[in-house]
Structures are given as structure tokens and as C-alpha cells.
């Protein structure tokens, strides 16, 4: 009891009352910091929101902070975008939705199939076969370069020759690469800055007359996000007990059916988290869209930057409206995604 009497005020403030609880002083500090960071996060969002309600004079006249007190909010920017300009807005919005949804769907299905295969099936692609493929491709490119043969034809021929070679002399090769190498190869594609690959992709789509179409953006986004899906889903597939699949296979289910009816339902939490992540990445993508779309397949980020390139200068109010309609679905997704992240779905992959 003597110990308690000796406690000074300072002790009482900075010493935890019990194990696993915070001292009052610490608590004050923690909440003050959190409140400060809340302001840092929320203020730019608040500023976007009120700017969308301002008229040109209110924006240019100086800082006004609180609607109805400092300035009278008006819906003119909203009206302009949704009533007068609704065709442009609507087209970009639907483009964004279609492209983000379809590329996510494609990315998730291709990626989770690859992740499942890498987690469960042992691959042993022969080193020699890969070398043959590279040689065939180089030969094809050289032919196109030197003799001006149509590149689609040379690639088809190169693939055919490679296939025949693999069938005939492939079995003589001994050295092979393993699943880990394939996985690393797929994930390492994320290191590629998009700027490195986008110019040839641009020319490829130009050649195929697919520039400024949905397909171009969907395919490109799919490949850009594929490494993330493979990486996250591989880890998740590994955590699913293999016994269920084994018993399904004993009962005569095919691989595809096992995957569809047993693995996918079990992988739902991982799938959901990965889907949301990829969806958001595709939704926000900018630099690839700048290269690959002009007007027809224009997505919202492009609409925003195109809107500000006009002679009228930056239309802060309209831009804020567009940013808000872009943010709203994403915030909902963030709240959904938060549930999965707190379960540590994404953590597992990071831990390696």
C-alpha cells in the first residue's frame, strides 16, 4: 500500500493503470495524433467537396471554408456536367465502368487459374524448349525485318515451327525450370514501368486498328494487374487444405470441376479482396489510358485532364464534381475491402 501512496501526479498521468491499458497521458497523445491525421486525410476531401459547390467567383475570390456561412453553395457545376454535358460525362463514366469491370473479371479468372495451377500442379518446362521458343521468335522478327513479310504471318509460322520442334526433339532436353521460377517470372512483370512497354503496345494496337477501343484498354489493364492477382492468389491457394481436392479427384471430378466447385468457393475471401484491389487499380489508371484512348474509349481520368486542357483554364468546380463521382464508388469499395484486410488476407502474401 505504501507503493500507491508514493505515486505523484506525474506518475498517475504517465503510468498505465493496468497491463494492456494506456496511461492517461499516453492516451491523450495517441488521440491527438490520430485526430491530427484524420484532419490531414479528410481536409483535402472536404475541400474537393465544397469546391464542387462553389461558383467561379467563390473559387477565385479567396478561401471560403464553410458553405452557407462563407458562401452560398450552388449546384451549377453539377448541373453543367449532368444536364448540358451529360453525354460526355456519361460516356466516360460507362467506359470506365465497362473497362474496369471486364478487365478485372478477365484478370481475376486468368490470374487465379494460373495461381491455382502453380500451387497444385508441378510444371517442368524444359529449358531447351524455352530457348527454342526465343530462337523461333528472333528468327520470325528477323524475317519480318529483312524481307518485309507480314508480322502476323511470321509469328504464326514461328509458333508452328516451335511446336513441331518441341514435339520432335523436345524430349532430348534434360534441364528444366520449376514452379518457383514461373511464379517469379510472372510476379516480376510488375517491376516493368508501364512506360517501357506502352509504346510497342500502342503500335501493336494501331496495327490491328484497335486503338481507342475498349478491347485495347481491357487487355492492357489485365496484363498490368495480372502479377498482383497471381501473387496474392498463389498464397491464398496454398493455404487451402489439399485434402478436399484430393477426395474430389478420387470421386472422379476433373481438374476444371475441382477448381470450379471446390477451390473457388473456398478461395472467396481472397478472391474478393484481390478483386476489389484490381478493380480500384483499373478504375484509377491514367498513363496507359493517355496512350491508348483518345475519345471513343476515354475513361474518367482522361476526361478530367482533358477538361482542364481547354481554353477556359482549369474549371476547378466541374473537375471537383468529376473527382467526387469517381471517388464515391471507390470509398464504398474501400469500406468493403477493409473487412478483408483486417482478416489479414493481404498480409499473408506480404509475409512471403
Amino acid at each position: 500500500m505504501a507503493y500507491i501512496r508514493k505515486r505523484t501526479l506525474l506518475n498517475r498521468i504517465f503510468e498505465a493503470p493496468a497491463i494492456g491499458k494506456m496511461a492517461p497521458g499516453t492516451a491523450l497523445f495517441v488521440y491527438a495524433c490520430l485526430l491530427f491525421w484524420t484532419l490531414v486525410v479528410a481536409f483535402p476531401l472536404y475541400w474537393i467537396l465544397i469546391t464542387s459547390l462553389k461558383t467561379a467567383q467563390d473559387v477565385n475570390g479567396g478561401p471560403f471554408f464553410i458553405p452557407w456561412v462563407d458562401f452560398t453553395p450552388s449546384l451549377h457545376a453539377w448541373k453543367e456536367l449532368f444536364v448540358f454535358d451529360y453525354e460526355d460525362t456519361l460516356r466516360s463514366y460507362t467506359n470506365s465502368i465497362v473497362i474496369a469491370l471486364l478487365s478485372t473479371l478477365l484478370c481475376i479468372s486468368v490470374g487465379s487459374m494460373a495461381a491455382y495451377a502453380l500451387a497444385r500442379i508441378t510444371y517442368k518446362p524444359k529449358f531447351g524448349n524455352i530457348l527454342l521458343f526465343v530462337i523461333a521468335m528472333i528468327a520470325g522478327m528477323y524475317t519480318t525485318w529483312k524481307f518485309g513479310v507480314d508480322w502476323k504471318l511470321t509469328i504464326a509460322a514461328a509458333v508452328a515451327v516451335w511446336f513441331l520442334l518441341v514435339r520432335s526433339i523436345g524430349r532430348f532436353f534434360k534441364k528444366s525450370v520449376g514452379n518457383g521460377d514461373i511464379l517469379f517470372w510472372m510476379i516480376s512483370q510488375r517491376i516493368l514501368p508501364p512506360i517501357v512497354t506502352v509504346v510497342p503496345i500502342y503500335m501493336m494496337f494501331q496495327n490491328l486498328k484497335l486503338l481507342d477501343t475498349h478491347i485495347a484498354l481491357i487487355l492492357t489493364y489485365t496484363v498490368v494487374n495480372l502479377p498482383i492477382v497471381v501473387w496474392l492468389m498463389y498464397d491464398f491457394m496454398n493455404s487451402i487444405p489439399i485434402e478436399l481436392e484430393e477426395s474430389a479427384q478420387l470421386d472422379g471430378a476433373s481438374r476444371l470441376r475441382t477448381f470450379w466447385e471446390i477451390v473457388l468457393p473456398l478461395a472467396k475471401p481472397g478472391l474478393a479482396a484481390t478483386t476489389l484491389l484490381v478493380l480500384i487499380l483499373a478504375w484509377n489508371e491514367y498513363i496507359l489510358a493517355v496512350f491508348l484512348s483518345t475519345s471513343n474509349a476515354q475513361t474518367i481520368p482522361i476526361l478530367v485532364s482533358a477538361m482542364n486542357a481547354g481554353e477556359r483554364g482549369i474549371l476547378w468546380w466541374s473537375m471537383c464534381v468529376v473527382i467526387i463521382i469517381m471517388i464515391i464508388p471507390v470509398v464504398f469499395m474501400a469500406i468493403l475491402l477493409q473487412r478483408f484486410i483486417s482478416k489479414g488476407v493481404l498480409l499473408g502474401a506480404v509475409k512471403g
Partner: protein
Amino acid sequence: MTTSILTSPKRLTRRQRFSEWVDRQASTLFITPAVVLILVFSIFPLVASLIIAFSRFRLGAGSYKVRWVGFKNFEKQFFGSEQFHFLGTFKGMSLFGWVVTIAAALLLIWWLYRYCKTRFWWLGFIGRIISALVFFGIVLLFSATLLSGTQFGTLGVTLFYVFVGCALQFGIGLGIALLCAQPIRGRTFFRVLFFIPLMITPIGIGYAFRMLADTTKGPFSPVWQWAGLGDFSWATDPWAARIFIVIGDSWQWIPFVFIILLAALENIPKDQQEAAEVDGASGWQIFREITWPQLLPVAATVMLIRMIEAFKLVDLPNIMTAGGPGIATESMSLHSYFAWRSLDLGQSAAIAYLLLFVTVVLCVSFFNYVVIGKLRQAA
């Protein structure tokens, strides 16, 4: 359902035979789409880009004119007319620059020497020589520009974004994660709120920060006026503009570091911390001796991912300052994009390849010397 083992092959219908065939090919079927997609949209462009980087490439009306020029495009970046743009302006090295360069060289030689002494593997040695050369090049670049009072080019700017941005994001992200890991009320609320910036489009962030940074009409203009900086503009001073972009980038990416570190912190078993608390350890001691070692593998991996993404930074500088003033905020991606826009495809590809080279060397170095070590310690 009849199983294929019980029926003889002759009695199978065509459909059954087809599904049998599909099942036998399943292992190929599962992985082929991903491999084909990556080959077509990643590997093929990578090779094509390399070819473009070595040629002069002109876009005509529906056709291309290609001419092989060898290393000319790279030469131009390093020694030619684009040197100021890519590397920076050189006007002799200051004494301080020499001191730093020589110190870095000695340190790297000592590091290589120690590696040869302790364990030697020729592939590891070659890798370490490449890393050492790149590091030395970076130090040389900054000593010859920053420490000698001249401006550095897009390579320096990119490295500035990566290192300063990542350090800032790691520091603040870890700080908030530690705060949120305390027994506080409303943890879910904070977690959702702090997570939101990551999901917002970089375009939106770029314009929002331009509004916030406005010293005459922005929300902080009273503060600027009061400090007597009313005429100051973030976009006209090189260092202010760079810091401004790092702040915007950090606002977006701190949540990423935060959310993963918080999940890692919550995964650390509480009993060790509580035992230490009972033994009278201070908060700092608990963090240093118990939390930090267990957090390190995750932290290293998060920083690796963050580094990879930071090298690609292009939309924020494009929106917030358009690379200006001059070239002060132009990242290498943006440099390459501007070159593409002026239809100089060879230059554009050359810069992109230089960016890829720097990214790969630095990320692989970080992975090999830091991340793997931490993961092994944890395992």
C-alpha cells in the same frame, strides 16, 4: 455418373472423349492464358522497345521508318545534347563533392572486399559489382550536381522521389500503425478513414493538392499571408515543387504502408509484450526488442513493393507541375512520355530502358541484401 475407368474407350461418346481430352490437358489449360497474355503484352513489347531504343524511329502516315543507330540514343542522354535533361548540368565538382565521392568509393570497395573474404560465389560477386557500380554512379551524380551547386536531371529527380518519398511514407505509416495498434476506441473508423487516400485516383489527388497549395486562393492562404509568403508559389521554386509532389505522393501511399504494418502489428502475439510490461520494460524497449524484430520482414517487403511503384511515378508530376519549373520535377517516366509526345520514339524508349535498368538494379539489390536477410531471420 459413369467413371472413365469402368467403361472401355470404345463406348465413350464423342462428348465424353472430348472432356477426357480436356482433363488430360488441364495442367496446360490452366496456365496458358496467363503465359500467353504476359508474352504478348509484356515480353514482346519489352523486346520491341529495346529495338526501338537502338534505332531512330519516325511515325509516318500509317507507316514507320526505322533506322538502326546503335547506342546513339543512349549516348545523347549521357554525353550529348540531352545530358542536362537526363543527368543534369555539370560545372566541375566542388571539394565537398569529391570528399563524398571518395568516401562512397572506399565504402563500396570495403563492402566488396568483405564479401570476398567471408563467402565468395562468382554470380553473387558479379551482382555485387553491378550494384556497387550503380550506387557509385548515383553518388557521383549527386555529388557532381547537388553538392556542386548545379541542377540534376530526371534521373536525380526520380531517385529523389523514390528515396525521400519512401522514407517519409515508411516513417509516418509506421507511426500511425503503432498509434492504431494501441488499445483505442473506434479503431475500425480510423482504419477505414486512413485507408481511403490509397483508393483515390492520382489525378484527383494532383488537382486537389494544387488547390491546397495555392498561396493566394487556397485554404491555407491566410497562413501564408500571415507568414509574409503571400507571393510565394510552390510551382516556381524547384525544391518547393519537388517536396510538394513528394507530399502528394505520400498522402496517397502512406495508407498502404499503414494498413499492412497495422495488420502485421495485430498479428504479433500480445503475451510477449505483456510479459515485458510486467517485467517493467519501457515502451521504447518493448518496441525495440520485441515488436520491431517481428515487424521487420513485413516492413522490408512493403518497402520493396512501395519502391517498385515509386519508380513508376508519372501522373502526379504531370498534373501538379507538368514537370516544371523547367525540368525540376520531371520523373523519368514523364521524361519518356514527353519524348513520345514529340514523336521521338527512339529517345523515349531509351529513357524508358534506362529507367528499367535503374529500377531493376536497385530493387534487386534491396531484395537480395535486405529483404531476403530479414525473411531468413524471421524463419
